[in-house]
């Protein structure tokens, strides 16, 4: 999701928050065609499902990397887990430390 988000960013999210067009959300991407599960992802809600379900069309901000609805189709409503409220400001030093912590996991 570069340039909006960078590795190690901390997001404050609202679980069950009503999806809003143009906003970021934590979504469940469907499993790959080979059946392997994909990680939870942050995507931008760009359009209600064009097929008319109550799901959402999601896109990546980085035009070159990642998956989105153009590859996997609309995300069903129950796959929209949380709305991203804000990216928490983190001092450069702290962000660096958090990144190391998450690598160690």
């Amino acid at each position, binding site marked *: *999701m*570069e340039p909006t*988000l960078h*590795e190690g*960013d*901390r*997001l*404050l999210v*609202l*679980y*069950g928050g009503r999806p809003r067009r143009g906003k970021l959300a*934590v979504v469940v*991407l469907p499993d790959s065609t080979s059946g392997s599960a*994909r*990680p*939870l*992802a*942050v995507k931008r809600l*760009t*359009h209600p499902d*064009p*097929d008319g379900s109550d799901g959402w069309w999601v*896109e*990546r901000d*980085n*035009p*070159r*990397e*990642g*998956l*989105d*609805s*153009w*590859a996997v*189709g609309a995300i069903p409503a129950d796959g929209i887990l949380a709305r991203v*409220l804000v990216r*928490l*400001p*983190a*001092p450069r030093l*702290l962000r660096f430390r*958090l990144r190391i*912590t*998450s690598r160690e996991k």
Partner: protein
Amino acid sequence: MTEPGKFVSTPRTLVEGTHMFSRLLVAPIQVSAHCDLPCGIYDPAQAKIEAESVKACMVKAVASSDADFKARALIVKEERSDLVKHHLWVLWTDYFKPAHFEKYPQLNTLFNEATKLAGAGGTKASWDVAVADNLLAKIDEIAVIFWETKKAA
């Protein structure tokens, strides 16, 4: 700033009461913002996924009556056609070695045809799903050779 493992909340909890509060009190989780594609340096799956996106642009744009959505589909179709070419070029120029081209004499032609199908005379100029299907079929042919060379290596 919240430390990992600590709970977070927002001012909204004060307004909406304890039910909302309990929904917000959860431990941090890790989510991905990009690494949901195959991360191998060389993998024809990258070109294939972008080509599938190109096909989806065609299918969805034709089915939609929303002008904004159609316009978006056009832009994405252009971008991802270029990405298909990019990923194919990386395989063509960086992965495959002279010995591969000797063993598979059709390989250069396959790449040439595939990148053309993703170009100005291919998916960029067309809304015909058959063009995208031809592109996907070419990528599949390249992928078969790719995995044979991987096995042989």
